[in-house]
């Protein structure tokens, strides 16, 4: 990995969700001084179309090759930003996220404490992204045959549905006959029609 590491850090204001408790400008200042960071910016909504465009722009124009976004939980937008990297031509696993909304601004009252904690998390994400490596998903073919285990009404129904769609189905039944409990029933509620 001889390539120079150039990190872009994007601090999201999330409207006032973050900005009200975290001094975003101070975090940007802090981040911009961290090693390998070539650009640090804040924006109202980093996840928005313009926010995403900014990242793409920096990747193209400033040769940013690692991206850190400090915003909400990665469980919300990690995939969104990974797609941005992908679209801009760098590996989506060169991305790291700091959760300064759910874990900071929403749960801390004191603005200086919140700002301090946000810095820690941004530092942590920046340090981490330096060690991250490109990864490539694989695709595998799907064998166009299905196995249905159990020959009761559920198994029969599933097997018939798949078989009718033109796929081969193996229907495995433990007993000598399919039918399961259903075959033992006489009439079924509420219409009392015959079950077999």
């Amino acid at each position, binding site marked *: 990995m001889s390539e120079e590491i150039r990190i872009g850090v994007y601090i999201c204001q999330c409207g006032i969700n973050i900005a009200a408790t975290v001094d975003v400008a101070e975090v940007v200042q802090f981040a911009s001084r961290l090693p390998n960071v070539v650009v640090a910016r804040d924006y109202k909504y980093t996840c928005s179309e313009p926010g995403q465009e900014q990242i793409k722009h920096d990747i193209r124009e400033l040769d940013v090759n690692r991206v850190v976004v400090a915003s909400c939980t990665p469980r919300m937008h990690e995939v969104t930003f990974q797609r941005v990297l992908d679209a801009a031509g760098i590996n989506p*696993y060169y991305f790291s996220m700091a959760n300064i909304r759910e874990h900071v601004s929403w749960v801390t009252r004191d603005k200086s404490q919140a700002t301090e904690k946000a810095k*820690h*998390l941004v530092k*942590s*994400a920046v*340090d*981490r992204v*330096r*060690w991250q*490596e490109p*990864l490539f*998903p*694989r*695709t*595998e*073919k*799907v*064998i*166009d*045959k299905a*196995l249905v*285990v*159990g*020959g*009761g*009404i*559920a*198994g*029969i*129904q*599933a*097997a*018939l*549905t*798949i*078989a*009718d*769609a033109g*796929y081969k*189905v*193996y*229907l*495995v*039944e*433990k*007993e*000598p*006959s*399919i*039918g*399961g*409990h259903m*075959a*033992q029933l*006489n*009439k079924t*509620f*509420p*219409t*009392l029609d015959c079950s077999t």
Partner: protein
Amino acid sequence: MMDAGRHPNIELLSYSAVVDVQGYVGNFQVRVKKKPRYIDLTKCTGCGECVKECPVEVDSEFEVGLTKRKAIYRPFAQAIPPAFVIDKRPSPCKSTCPAHIPVQGYIALIGQGKYDKALALIRETTAFVGTLGRVCHHPCELECKRKDVEAPLAICALKRFAYDVAAPTAPPPAPVERVYGEKVAIVGTGPAGLSAAYDLVRMGYGVTVYEALPVAGGMLAVGIPAYRLPKDVLQQEIDYIKALGVEIKLNTPIGRDGGPTLEDLRRDYDAVFLAVGAHRSRQLNVPGEDLPGVLHSTDFLRALNLGQEVKIGKRVAVIGGGNAAIDAARSALRLGSQVTIVYRRSRAEMPAIPAEVDAAEEEGIAFHFLATPVRILGENGRMTAMECIRMELGAPDESGRRRPVPVPSSEFTLEVDTVIVSIGQQPDLAPLAGVEATGWGTLTADPDTMATPVEGVFAGGDAVTGPASAVWAVAAGKRAAESIHRYLRGLDLRQGRVFEWPKAADIQVEIPAGIEKAARREMAALPMAERKSTFKEVELGFTEEEARAEAARCLSCAVCSECQECVKLCEAKAIDHNMREEFVDLEVGTIIVATGFADFDPTRLPQYSYGRSPNILTGMEFERLTSAGGPTGGEILTAEGKVPERVAIIHCVGSRDVNANRHCSRVCCMYALKHAHLVREMTGAEVYEFYMDMRTFGKGYEEFYERVQEDGVIFVRGRGTEVRVREDGKLVVRAEDTNLGRPVSATVDMVILGTGMEARPDADQVARLFGLGRTADGFFAEAHPKLRPVETNTEGVFLAGTCQGPRDVPDTVAHASAAAAQALALMSKGVVTISPTVSHVLTRFCTGCGKCVLACPYNAISLNGDGKAEVNAALCKGCGTCAAACPSDAIVPLHFTDDQLVAQIVGVLQ
């Protein structure tokens, strides 16, 4: 059901189970075990003729035990596939029998009075029916499951009965047609040699058996006294074998006295089977052994059996504790002597058949246990006494029996004039130049195939094992015959053969509840005076009545008794009792688990008295009662055959109950309403319905509830807490009526328990097989309780129906359709994306210790041929548990590597 059975895209594997699942979404390798059906699906026409002669009846699963079915059966009339099936399980008796005689089969036939068929059935396995029926040490009886009721069946005596009753009138056998050109030489006409001859001649080989003695039968003829095995019984059985075409050359020893050598036999025959037995007696190795009056049991019994004059004294000591010792002692007694048996261990360690020891004692033979001779004393060349020393039992030896050690200064003297030594025998191998012997002086042969190191030469019986029992020799002969056949046909000696049968202890047999005890029958014996003075047979055999009563005690552990009656009836020739289980390997892209539920077993809640009255029914039992195809033809009747006047239905049995299952089974309210309606409609009986609250959540359900209310059903809001069986058979149901706020009770003729649904008992096993989770109620866990109801945490595996939770028919169908749609979506897309955030092994650091393999929740890691860990990326879910378990940091969860996490930890702290 019918559609599924004949859909061109559905391959039905019935009577089968998935035993292994490998691979990952889109690419599963599945192994399916097909249980042997013993009926060829392609030939069976479903005519049902086969059932007619089947002697075995068991409870019908389909009719939930309300009726019986045969061992060969079709689960129900509309079964798919419509073919029959044979319910065959391992049985302790047949498994334990060294010769694997179908014990349960002939016992079932005896029970039905088909004695000739019983004899014929045994003769398919062995020619020595009357013989084994008398002399077998019957290990089968030790394992007979009936012993858990009161006592094992008298299996041996029943075999003898079949012979005694049917053999005299059985038509003489015709010579078997030669199929193959090869000839086989057998040395020895004992049970091993003649059993091999019997099987080989029936296969179509030419067989010649050489015998050194003037009579055929080996130890059966010259070792066992006539009071145990009358000469004519043995002779008739040997004649039967001869009649099939086996040539026996008497007075023709091998390798001595001018007889042919082993080399001659190898040259003149295509294969040789050595079954020379163990006729040479071991020496005592004490001073005075050369005195006249010291005999060996083999010589003594042989002379006696050959009708030679034998002289023994008045006071005889027999040394040894085996069957030969007992035979010698009881024979000496019959010659008029006073007999004492001296044995160095205690009675419990005696290898002789316990019943024989008992018989010897009854006849007045004395025993000196824990004693052994140290010298034999004589005067003027005549024996006067034998000096013995007392023994005590020390530490166990290699055989597991406690080794006897002498007690110092405990010598004592027995005044005797004859000593019969019976402390073991060896084969006489001297004449058999070219064969290999073991350190024990026996022949070397493969214990499974009986092959010796010499090409084309097989060996078995006492000559290989040392002295053992007749049935072991029969088994050895049978194994040798099969091996010789394979050898001559150029087939593998082992492939497809079963040498190890299931151990009796491993065979699970359920003893029916409430079985009535029935004493084991014992055969009548000759009066004692006659026993002591003659060589007439002691045991007199069963009467027909005794035999049938004894046969009726059989528990039919194997269900199918292999009596072969069905085979004779099947015109389509669809039945094959030798079918084996098969394995089918499948490759599939998706898996739908639809294994269903189990009915709650109400015996777990004793307050409902289920099982204590036949009129307390589960929901499913009542269901069968109302079915036109059911046990009553669709009439709702009590066990006494009467139309009930009052019926109680109890909801929530086993559901919403902290003592059983907490969950609601969802279907019981509705089926209970249906039952109430049917009872009202079909019998007009008063119906009391005990419910907690009425759950009528489905489309049209509430309307149905209203209709049942209009039927005049009496609804009691409150859990039915107890059912009591009154002495007159009436049933009293108690409940707390929560509307009235007081206890109520109803006296009825029939109670229907609204038994709920629960996870199947094998759910844990199935979960492990498919990598499924389970929820607290025991059912399989879906990926998300609301949003992903048919997916599981194993990608590509979906859930359908009640295996995921209780649901009724329409919901089941909907759920199954959803599962099918998910599977179809995957298959029609054709590809899956596999995440790269998986673990990766740095082989340089990996020591192959396997901790990651064990820690991985997905079995995604294995050790490869180089002893290094290897990750199946498709199975890995990237949890990283492996990395924390690895002491060498040799496994790296990509995107959550140690480097990255350390950077993050240190970074967050600075």
